[in-house]
């Protein structure tokens, strides 16, 4: 492609030599259409696959709980125009908790506040007649939205709390905001699974440090204690990071009702054996229920566009 452009502009070296010293430009900018006409191959009547994010999701109250305190959001769009295709997606899982059964209020508030701010500040700007980028950075917008959610919960539903894991995909960048112990995983085409978040769990932390065995942890009186959650005390800050979207494969977001019950390789097996993200999620959730389903279960699976070629 570079070479081609070079040729049109007379950039290539084998151009006939002209005089050595010169003051004025002898090449005027070439209009866009003219370049495109040469650079782009004639459009064939074949269909092209657009780089869309195909998402599925599933939830279950589980087998022991009487209501669902998890909340999820799935928001996937694709903007295609001329030669640019921009996939945009926002995916959130929140696992609410609270002494007085108001976990669902916290998780619902968290999802709504974050989604609203992100859609308003990022997505709407994108859909403008003259697309206007937000003043703040994407990471700042995510961070502020989570802080706002935190304060909203503290005010509207004191005593309750929630975890939150949000993945924002903008073209080839993927930004994750994370608090608590829901998880985001990347599963590549070869079945390699990688965890993208770090649980904010006290017992987890003690295990990481080698002070608790898995056995001790599973019966530890504080095994459900998080050291960071929305609505639970200051100072508070989410983990935020931005990386390149994997070239292919899947992203999985889930609450601990799934990852705590279904082993990783089983999750990978289900994802690879399922015909669609939606059916994969159904199967993941029922695997967690088969394993006992002690908690609410939420899963979102996103099939990524294949950028590998």
């Amino acid at each position, binding site marked *: 492609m570079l070479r081609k452009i070079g040729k049109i502009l007379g950039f290539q*070296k084998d151009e006939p030599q002209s005089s*050595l010293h010169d003051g004025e430009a002898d090449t005027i*900018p070439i209009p866009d259409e003219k370049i495109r006409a040469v650079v782009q191959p004639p459009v064939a009547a074949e269909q092209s696959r657009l780089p869309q994010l195909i998402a599925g999701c599933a939830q279950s109250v589980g087998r022991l709980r009487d209501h669902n305190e998890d909340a999820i959001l799935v928001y996937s769009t694709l903007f295609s125009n001329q030669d640019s295709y921009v996939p945009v997606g926002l995916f959130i899982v929140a696992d609410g908790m609270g002494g007085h059964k108001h976990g*669902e209020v916290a998780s619902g508030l968290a999802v709504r506040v974050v989604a609203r701010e992100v859609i308003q500040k990022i997505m709407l700007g994108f859909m403008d007649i003259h697309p206007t980028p937000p003043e703040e950075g994407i990471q*700042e917008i995510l961070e502020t939205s989570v802080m706002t959610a935190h304060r909203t919960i*503290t005010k509207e539903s004191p005593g309750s709390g929630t975890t939150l894991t949000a993945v924002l995909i903008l073209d080839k960048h993927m930004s994750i905001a994370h608090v608590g112990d829901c998880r985001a995983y990347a599963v590549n085409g070869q079945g390699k699974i990688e965890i993208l978040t770090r649980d904010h769990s006290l017992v987890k932390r003690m295990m990481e440090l080698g002070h608790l065995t898995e056995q001790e942890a599973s019966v530890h009186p504080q095994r459900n204690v998080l*050291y960071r959650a929305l609505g639970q005390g200051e100072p508070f800050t989410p983990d*935020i990071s931005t990386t390149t979207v994997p070239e292919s494969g899947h992203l999985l977001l889930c609450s601990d009702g799934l990852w705590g019950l279904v082993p990783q390789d089983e999750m990978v097996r289900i994802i690879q054996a399922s015909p669609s993200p939606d059916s994969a999620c159904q199967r993941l959730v029922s695997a967690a229920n088969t394993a006992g389903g002690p908690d609410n279960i939420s899963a979102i699976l996103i099939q990524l566009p294949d950028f590998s070629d």
Partner: protein
Amino acid sequence: MNNPQSTQSFESDSELDVSQHLQAGTTLAERYTIQGIIGIGGMSAVYQARDMHFPNVTKLVAVKEMVNRALDPVVRSTIVRNFEREANLLASLEHRAIPRIYDYFTLNERSYLVIEYISGHDLEELVNNSNDFIQEERIVRWAIELCDVLSYLHNHKPEAIIFRDMKPSNVMINAQDHMVLVDFGIAKPFQAGKRGTMIGTEGYSPPEQYRGEASPQADIYALGATLHHAITRRDPRLEPPFSFHERPILQHNPNVSSVLVKVIERALEYNPEDRFQTAEDMKSAMLGVANETGMLSNISASISQAVRPSESIQPIWSFKCEDEIRGSPFFHNGVVYTGCYDNNLYALDANDGDFLWKYPAEGGIVSKPAYFDESIYFGSEDHRLHAVYIRTGRVNWTYFTKGPVRSSPFIAEGHIFIGSDDRFLHAVNATTGRPAWRVDAGSPVRSTPIVANDLVYVGSEAGDFYCLDFTGAIKWRFKAKRAVTSSAVVSKGVVYFGSVDSTIYALDAKTGWVIWRFRLGKPTISTPFLQDNLLFTGSVDGAIYCIDINSSKEVWRYTTEHQVTGSPIILKDSLYCGSVDGCLYCLEFRSGRLRWKFQTEGSITGTPVVWEDVISIGSTDHRIYAFEA
């Protein structure tokens, strides 16, 4: 089953209404007239008040107010009784690091404690309100005072007093720069049963505190955590619990002496048995630090044993030009090229620094040359871009702009991209010296353009940052608040650059959307260097920064004695960077620890160049140096 209506049912046990705080002018117990609020916590508020029993002088006191929210009358009166017992105990303490208790009383659901007013700031404010590290000497002195007061409390008879809540916001620094402990947890009973299934760890508490244990070693851990926070400027409440060892002190503040690091690390051991067993033990270790670092002499002189003494670092060669070297050297095929203020471009043998040839421009050369197809290219104050044959040092062609050229050339697709103070970005055919196009950038272009994925990126002195295609058409434009003199780097679809507005920007390379911004202490004109998801850059604040490019968090920062205007570069596991203080620094790139430094007799403003195992840099002492890397 998400039910938004259920929000309503919370009204009853909602938080203390902030507007209910006492207004200035209110008089309590017909004696204490509120002047203003000092601190608001979850369960309490602290006011500054005037004691009206002393009408002729202004006697200030601090009044701590706690709200009793228990509804059950039995619980309620138990809380009040506990409070009164604690107040009596506190009133019996006598130590210069503990404020006096003057009075206490309870009015309806509120209990009050009247305390000696400390004029000063708490340590948390101090850390948050400054951009710089606190001097080690001060920290050691404070640490000794805190050990001293802990020792007083732990040896209290008949029962030891465990402070339990050592953290920066509970430690005040008075006007004489002495430490005072505030907040003896007297508000704690008012807080009982407030939290739900989760506990927010305080970040400073030791692991055994979660089992409800309190011991002198717990206070020692929390003191270690407090010192760690003050010295690294990293708030442990924002990090996973018990993760201090993952944030080695020297990684965040490489200027701390290693003896102090050891004492703090010992206080922060996971197991209480491994910490100092008593506050006196920790105090004598701190006194040892004060002795060893010679506290009175310059602290930064005693950095760490890993530092090679400067005398052992000698250049393998150096070459003297006729004037200052402000630009950056360039290496190609056994030859080092450097521009100089004496108007010459020098070509030197990279092995021994032997002079090969020089080429005279008609103005100083402050940029970095580039190579393409048997010629070397560079801009000069004489308004020209010069192309010189590397074999002979003779001119191939020159290209005129209408202003001094301080930008360095970037070569791609047989073309040279270069900025000029004439406000244009020029694209010039490298073989012929004929312009392909030029683009008006609206203000001087001193940054070096770069080309990545068929796009050209360049910043201007008015703060515009442009992305152009190969026709010179603008794809997008981003506006920084001040000049973009730094050049950009592109990696994985993100373009990074610094600005004189004191910010490092990470923008989506395709659209110019901001992914993150990182605030530095001062402006930067240094070009970032990327390695292993880390970004390295210098700033006018004198620091070399290392930033994680995924999370945009600072990993470490090394402070030199003057501005850092050039860029760092990395070879193997070392980072090399010059400073206007005249030194070339060699740091361990993952931790920022100093390996060695070499003092030149001038200032270093440019960026070093590396080849094989050699590193080279110019200085305003007229010399270009080469060192073994």
